[in-house]
């Protein structure tokens, strides 16, 4: 059909352009109608079998969508598993722990007269271990919560928040002479509860690790670095050995023994998770016995 139409076009054109070079060419072509027909058909069939550029893209995009759907399903499953794990940690494990602590306390009460100092001490150790485990589980529950809950951002005066946190620490230990300096105007758009937790961790650490020093100084400020605002919390306390820098924010990795400084080892891991959820990053510099500075950015 197409070739017949093409032929007609050629013949008419040939008529119109008789005296031109093109007219001569078209006349020749018209004369070789059979050959031209065959060539046109071949061309037509070739074009039919080739996938056009649009079809290639559509196929690729379909394959990508399939792969994406599969990954999304896997992620949803992993999240579901983490949710039940988190629930197990915060609920199911607490009941047996309560029993361990509760019945040890019952033994201590009921058998007070029959136990010697060492035996009482052993029961106290059981209670202390149960208590420590509860404390770790509380931290893990917070870690899960911070990873999963939705961010509610609002304008927060971080300096004022830090002042309140230090105020709380002072109330708990009125004797300690700690100097605290917070820069004015440290406002940021953040999830209030999460940032409070992050600052409690960082300031709480500074408070804890300066207790060996007679007079302590803690600062909360900001600086410009590569065009970004960097917040920092600095103290002149026990510091840390920079050789172990990589372990600082890892869960359960501690750089001091429990004898020296108590703690579950999750505070900084939780803090890092909070900062990362705000699209920021956190890092630290320190020197043993000379203090530490924790830097963080917020988005």
């Amino acid at each position, binding site marked *: 059909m197409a070739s017949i139409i093409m032929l007609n076009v050629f013949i008419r054109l040939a008529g119109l352009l008789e005296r031109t070079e093109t007219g001569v060419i078209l006349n020749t072509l018209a004369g070789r109608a059979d050959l031209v027909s065959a060539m046109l058909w071949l061309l037509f069939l070739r074009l039919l079998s080739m996938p056009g550029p649009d079809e290639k893209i559509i196929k690729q995009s379909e394959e990508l969508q399939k792969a994406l759907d599969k990954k999304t399903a896997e992620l949803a499953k992993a999240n579901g598993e983490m949710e039940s794990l988190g629930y197990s940690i*915060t609920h199911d494990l607490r009941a047996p722990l309560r029993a361990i602590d509760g*019945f040890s306390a019952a033994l201590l009460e009921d058998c007070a007269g029959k136990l010697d100092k060492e035996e009482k001490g052993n029961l106290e150790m059981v209670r202390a271990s149960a208590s420590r485990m509860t404390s770790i589980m509380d931290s893990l529950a917070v870690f899960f919560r911070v990873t999963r809950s939705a961010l509610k951002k609002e304008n927060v005066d971080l300096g004022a928040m830090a002042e309140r946190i230090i105020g709380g620490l002072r109330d708990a230990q009125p004797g300690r002479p700690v100097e605290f300096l917070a820069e004015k105007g440290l406002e940021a758009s953040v999830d209030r509860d999460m940032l409070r937790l992050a600052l409690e961790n960082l300031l709480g650490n500074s408070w804890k690790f300066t207790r060996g020093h007679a007079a302590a100084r803690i600062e909360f400020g900001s600086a410009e670095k590569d065009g970004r605002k960097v917040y920092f919390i600095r103290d002149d306390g026990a510091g840390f050995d920079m050789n172990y820098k990589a372990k600082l924010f890892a869960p359960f990795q501690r750089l001091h023994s429990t004898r020296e400084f108590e703690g579950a080892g999750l505070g900084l891991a939780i803090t890092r998770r909070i900062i990362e959820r705000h699209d920021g990053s956190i890092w630290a510099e320190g020197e043993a016995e000379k203090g530490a500075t924790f830097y963080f950015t917020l988005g």
Partner: protein
Amino acid sequence: MEKIILLVEDDPGDVELTKRALKRASITNKVVLAGDGSEALDYLFAAGKYAGRNAEETPYVVMLDLKLPKIDGLEVLRRMRADERTKSVPVVILTAHANGQTISNGYSLGIVSYLKKPIDTEQLSEIVRQLEKHWMAVTGKR
């Protein structure tokens, strides 16, 4: 009428520790134990293994754990509040984890208070005071 405490709790350790706390707080009421939500409802509505019971004799207080097998604590509470016979029975929720939403759900279904596990004698003494006030207000006696 006997002032019965209906303790709805599935964990045997928690049952023992709660009974111990009651004893140390000098609370000598008879304790009826239900191991799950379904058994609690059977007791309250004189059904199942409690079919012979007089349903008019409602407990003095229901100490209700929230996480229960078969029927959970909040559902038990809802059914209690939906029935004329058990609508005004005082309920104290027992919880290991003071979750804000659960607590407010409880209060909106009219609980007296909630107790955080492990229960100690101080918490119990406070509950006893609140219960006595409640019963004075409801009946003028008891």
